């Protein structure tokens, strides 16, 4: 195990980096380490953690904005927001439990660094759409700021989006400023039982074509639905297709009825009230239906919503795969039997034919060293990404090779 250094301030983090710059030794960048088993394995001399840089230092509920140090636990942020009936609308997903890390420990910096968005992404955008500003330390130990605290800001290039989703390979996020939104007064979920994947997908896409602001669209085939902790659904022994409506009480009632009528052809849904709805959508946020196991590998595939079932069918021709569809079919979590390449060649071909991106979320480190973990890039994009790496991290110090071998 390498040393873990915990910087308490951005300045301290800069100082910590200097000896590694001098010795040209790479370091692993982590928050709580909940996602340390995701990505290509790295050889690093030390781990630098942001977990001692914590605290919310600005929160203006009426301006819908909050600023926190990068290592602030997400749980603390969500508790503070909840005390004002607000939330992170993009519903960050916790990859800790499914990837063999701890549950509920993730930091706000890592949420943005990994662009972790949950089911509501389909309506409100991704984590990166909510990141307004940041302070970060580059691989050259330079401190810089980007963006700001206001929702509209086109002053200079959009470095916030560049860093969101860069998995700590460009810079370390020491502060993040983000947009927050009011929490809904009421949540309802329409549950359709027993639909096959293609019809379930059709239902999800049809719901998104209606004007009722459906904020969650998932389909769980029978085997995966049986794993739900929400007992009322797991007991059904059937596939679950779910639509979420969130709003003021009157609106939720009105829209639930309107949706039910508009989608009558798909059957009569069970309606979950707020309590059961929150339990159901919360367990999906930590991928409860894709539990950690050494016998299986887990892929995350993003594709055009209508292509979801086609991608899955193409994969299932080659291997046993259990899946969970989110984002109206545009996000698929695919669990396959553990193997030397985690099914990479067949999965990448299925995605190449149908369009989209595939990321290997869980596999043994030897597998993650042997196959591409993130979606391979075309040469021109790869060249530009190398340019960005060179610009932010000229000595290739920060998480080198975690995303791609040459970044």
């Amino acid at each position: 195990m390498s040393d873990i250094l915990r910087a308490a301030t951005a300045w301290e983090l800069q100082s910590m980096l200097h000896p590694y710059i001098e010795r040209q030794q790479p370091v692993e960048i982590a928050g709580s380490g909940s996602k340390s088993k995701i990505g290509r394995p790295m050889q690093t001399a030390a781990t630098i953690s942001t977990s001692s840089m914590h605290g919310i230092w600005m929160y203006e509920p009426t301006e819908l904005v909050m600023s926190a140090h990068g290592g602030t636990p997400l749980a603390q942020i969500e508790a503070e927001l909840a005390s004002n009936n607000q939330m992170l609308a993009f519903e960050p997903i916790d990859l800790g439990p499914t990837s063999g890390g701890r549950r509920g420990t993730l930091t706000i910096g890592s949420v943005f660094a990994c662009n972790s968005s949950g089911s509501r992404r389909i309506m409100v955008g991704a984590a990166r759409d909510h990141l307004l500003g940041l302070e970060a330390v580059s691989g050259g130990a330079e401190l810089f700021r980007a963006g700001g605290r206001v929702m509209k800001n086109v002053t200079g290039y959009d470095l916030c989006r560049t860093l969101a989703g860069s998995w700590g390979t460009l810079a370390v996020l020491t502060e993040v400023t983000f947009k927050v939104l009011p929490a809904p007064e009421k949540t309802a979920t329409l549950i359709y039982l027993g639909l096959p994947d293609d019809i379930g997908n059709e239902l999800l896409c049809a719901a998104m074509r209606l004007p009722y602001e459906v904020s969650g669209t998932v389909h769980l085939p029978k085997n995966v639905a049986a794993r739900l902790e929400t007992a009322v659904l797991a007991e059904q022994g059937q596939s679950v297709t779910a639509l979420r409506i969130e709003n003021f009480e009157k609106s939720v009632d009105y829209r639930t009825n309107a949706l039910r009528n508009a989608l009558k052809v798909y059957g009569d849904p069970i309606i979950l009230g707020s309590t059961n709805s929150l339990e159901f959508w919360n367990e999906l946020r930590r991928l409860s239906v894709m539990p950690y196991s050494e016998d299986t590998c887990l892929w995350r595939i993003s594709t055009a919503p209508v292509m979801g079932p086609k991608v899955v069918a193409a994969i299932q021709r080659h291997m046993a795969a259990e899946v969970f569809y989110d984002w109206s079919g545009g996000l698929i979590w695919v669990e396959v039997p553990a193997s030397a390449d985690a099914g990479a060649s067949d999965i990448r071909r299925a995605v190449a034919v149908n369009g989209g991106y595939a990321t290997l979320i869980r596999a043994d480190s030897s597998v993650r060293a042997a196959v591409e973990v993130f979606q391979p890039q075309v040469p021109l994009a790869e060249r530009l990404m190398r340019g960005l790496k060179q610009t932010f991290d000229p000595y290739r110090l920060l998480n080198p090779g975690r995303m791609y071998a040459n970044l």
Partner: protein
Amino acid sequence: MSLAMPEPDTATIERRDEIVAQLKRIAGDEAVIADADGRRAFETDGLTAYRAMPLAVVLPTTTEEVADVLRYCHQNKLKVVARGAGTSLCGGALPLEDAIVVGVSRMNKVLELDYNNRIARVETGITNLAISKVVEEEGFFYAPDPSSQLACTLAGNLAMNSGGAHCLKYGVTTNNVLGMKVVLMDGEILELGGAALDAEGYDLLGLMIGSEGQFGIVTEATVRIIKAAEGARPMLIGFSSSEAAGACVSAIIASGIIPVAIEFMDRPAIEVCESFAKAGYPMDAEALLIVEVEGGEEEINDLLTRISEIAEPFNPTTIQISSGASQSAKIWKGRKSAFGAIGRISEYYCMDGTIPLSQLPLVLQRIGEICASHQLRVANIFHAGDGNLHPLILYDANDPDSAERAELAGAEILTLCVEVGGCLTGEHGVGIEKRDLMMTQFTESELALQMRIKTIFDPDWLLNPGKVFPLHLAPQGLANQA
């Protein structure tokens, strides 16, 4: 006007005939505009105080033609200024005398409409409003709605990451784009994103949007289209002070309601817009809010009633809920024609700072003082929900001194926006207008970092030079030395 542009390269200008001949060979005679009258139509943009005759103008019709033109320019170290409809208010499309203007206005086709995946794939010369028009019959729309949406192109929206009045709920351009085809300066064509959400790797798509035409020329884009709400209705709330209006906006948001738009106008703006549009704005108010909500009929009634109740403690001078479609249209016509209406009474300089909402009363007071100290009048329009402030500084175009004072006042206002925690530009972009103010928001090393990123995409700094970065910092000479 006081902003300098880089010295044009005389050797390039002397080669004009040869360059024009080559461009015609590459893109065809039809696509190249070389005569003086033709070029004059491209000598300025929405920042009309600045003008420069471009060396030549090319209006290609395909991505491959754009690539061929850029490749030629790259090989010959010719500067290129990309152009959509030329509506930029910050000089983003201002030509240079030694530069080729490459306009995408003839590339305006709709390539694919896919309602199940909720995307439209279009060429970027299409106007912003045309995208919404083409998906309207299915009840969909494209969300970003800059005031110039009738004229401005998607290409320009992408370059500037444009916003509009309805961003509070639906976001700005970058939140509504899923993919693009972009031509880099060396003629290579890069496809980014597509129908799937959140491509892996660094977010080159997000970096490209808002790069002010300095990274490449975007020729196609995949944009998100959204099913329109069942209905929408605005209400007018007048106040006796801007403090009361600002406090009311805070109270609405604190209640958990996110209206689709909250627009603020001060008294001078109300007067000008009302006399132009006869929208029924209250003439006795010091500040006016237009608050719009969406949903089914009952939902709208419920929300507007709630908002009326929230407004009560702030002693509104008027609360008026739109009676129906025609009044709603008038209310928005008044707001959306604000720039045109003010333009009828005076030349004006439209600013675009962003501020934290809580600073609104202080900022409006200081703006009044700043403009008074320069003997200028000002009207303020504010996207209150997202903090985007548009002071319109009125000046006399025939009086160079007045124009100079307007620029000075504008710079002081934007510096003030940064001082109170906001930024220089919310949706118009930096262009040439705010170029020299970048040092108020960024340190020199932060600007150096951004300029190194520019160099990744355009190593010779040929694309849209002289913009975004203060001239003394940017390596403008690169193009001429090469």
